[in-house]
């Protein structure tokens, strides 16, 4: 057990782990802790390996269940706004398209980590009409959209959504425009932590990616490129999980159910 702990702390020292990684580590630890010491080593090993496989299957299953639930929320003639790139949302959109919905997607992207272009290209290759823009195109494109669908790194027990930097601005703008904001999140990404603002737990990205100042070096200049931000629960309409579509305030309740 102590070996596991030292392995996990080494990983965390390399880079602070995300909420889903934390869940995965916790599930392995609890599998090890629930081992019967009287069993032979081979059986113990296979027990833990089974637990790991089950976790991986749960991840697959969650993604499919969320895609199925989102079908009820994506109607034909919808224009769905999304931000950045997400395998989960790609699956959701592909399945909605395969089930015959005709909808459009607007993909917004950050200029410092332009993963959204990959997402936009993948959607377009699947014959979904896509409009691609950077973060500054939001105000122009938001009136053309009917709902916002976002993915996240995790949701804390006070309902804050931890996601890629920029997500909070999109959720604020959409809420101001009375547009529903849906966050797709598997339950293994729920966390018992509490986050109040974007700055208490964040990561710095590569400062040279801020193009405007990449050529300048001056003692008075500092460059900050935060990778994550926290969206408060009042800007989120609903969270789509594999157990159903719940309001962000229900995250703490779902966590409690999972414990039992």
């Amino acid at each position, binding site marked *: 057990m102590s070996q596991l702990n030292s392995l996990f702390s080494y990983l965390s020292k390399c880079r602070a782990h995300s909420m889903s990684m934390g869940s995965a580590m916790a599930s392995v630890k609890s599998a090890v802790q629930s081992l019967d010491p009287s069993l032979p080593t081979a059986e113990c090993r296979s027990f833990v390996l089974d637990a790991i496989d089950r976790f991986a299957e749960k991840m697959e299953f969650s993604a499919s269940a969320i895609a199925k639930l989102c079908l009820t929320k994506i109607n034909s003639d919808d224009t769905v706004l999304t931000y950045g790139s997400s395998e989960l949302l790609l699956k959701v959109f592909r399945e909605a398209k395969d089930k015959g919905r005709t909808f459009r997607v607007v993909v917004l992207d950050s200029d410092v980590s332009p993963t959204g272009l990959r997402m936009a290209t993948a959607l377009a290759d699947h014959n979904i009409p896509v409009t691609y823009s950077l973060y500054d195109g939001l105000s122009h494109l938001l009136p053309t959209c009917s709902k916002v669908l976002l993915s996240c790194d995790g949701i804390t027990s006070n309902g804050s959504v931890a996601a890629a930097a920029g997500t909070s601005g999109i959720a*604020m703008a959409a809420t101001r425009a009375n547009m529903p904001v849906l966050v797709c999140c598997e339950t293994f990404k729920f966390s018992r932590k509490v986050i109040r603002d974007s700055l208490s737990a964040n990561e710095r990205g590569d400062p040279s990616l801020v193009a405007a100042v990449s050529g300048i070096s001056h003692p008075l200049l500092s460059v900050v490129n935060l990778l994550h931000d926290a969206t408060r629960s009042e800007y989120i309409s609903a969270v789509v999980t594999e157990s159903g579509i719940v309001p962000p305030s229900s995250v703490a309740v779902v966590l409690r159910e999972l414990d039992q």
Partner: protein
Amino acid sequence: MPPFSLPSFLSSRPKLSLSLSSFLSLLRANSPSRSLPRPVLCLGLLEVLKLLLSSERRASGRELLLLVEAVGGEVALISTDAALTNVVGRVMKSVRDEVEAAYAAAAAGAAADQRGGEGDGASNPPALARQPSLTSTLFPPPPPGSPELLYAAAETERLRSLSLGEAALEPEEGTAAEEGTAASSGSERRSQILPLPPHYSSTRPALSDLMESISEIHNDISTSHTALDDVAHLHLADQDTVLTYGESRTLTSFLRAASKKRSFQVLHAPVPGVYAGSPPSPSPHVSSLLAAGVPVTAIPASNVPPAASQSSVLLLSAHLVLANGGILAPAGSLLAATAAVSSRRPVVVVADLSYKLTRRYPHGGQDTLNSLLSPSPLLPPDFDPPKCLEAVRPARDYVPPEMLELLVTNLGTWKPSYVYRLLQDSFCEQDPAEFA
């Protein structure tokens, strides 16, 4: 009278024609990525109009207005920048003011001549020279023979002479409609000035007064940044963290002026699309602030919402100030303003009203006076877009007045609700909506 035709007018005036065509080719050479500063373009246009007005000494007020409108129409065909049409609107207002002043002076002179024999020496001051009171400023009764009554009378007479169907269908045109000729070709612009009262055709504005008002506009545009810089230190406090989104020369000079008396730091987020693409070029705004000794923290635009809660004020620069007090600002400003308002931070706009104030309203929402720029900086160099993909890069956002705390301008500092009051100083509502 045949409809006014600019090409035939210019063909007999080579100097003016040369001046206008060189200005227009300067405008055509502008592109979003490399353009002259807007004040420079406005001053260039003002020079052309000054040459036009000073060389037409025999033209009546009506003819001058048509001329200015025609030149403005040519400019509007090439450039969608409303700053240029604002300058045209201001010049038209100056012409109207000088015509009215000349007419009033002539009327006073005629009245004095009539009473010359009585010897009392006191002539009735013309209505326009009456001392204004607060009530008369806010709710001025149109005096008899005033322009408002004459416009109303002229328009009513014209409409009465048409049948109901014709009146409903006709486009807004000036005297060209009455001629009923379709002689104008597609390249000639039909005048859209509302019918002018008869004294405009017979009165010539005093040339020296007219040139003086044009010079005032010139001084306004060239020195307005000083007025802004003088008040900069009043709007920033020591230890402030100023969040700025987007760049402009006005904002840079405002912050530099403030830094002479206040010590603050700047969180700067550039507009994403501007610096995308390779090779990245450093921001002149940031370099200039650093040279002035202001600590700058540069952040990407996606970090603006969390940064808003850490700053004391969001400072935006307006591209245009609209008649309802809202502004057009670089794309993404609405998002920055939303973040600031959510964190209860004031949004302060710095705007140079000498050429940025416009009479237009945001009827098109986010599309008002907006344009889409080339999306190629967003995409990698050898990118082959799939058929279903379109990339979009808007130029501006409209930020509504209810999100703005203050407008700091060269004329003063007010809440956005005051802007409508400034319009009548610069523009006349009888002028075509395009030129204001």
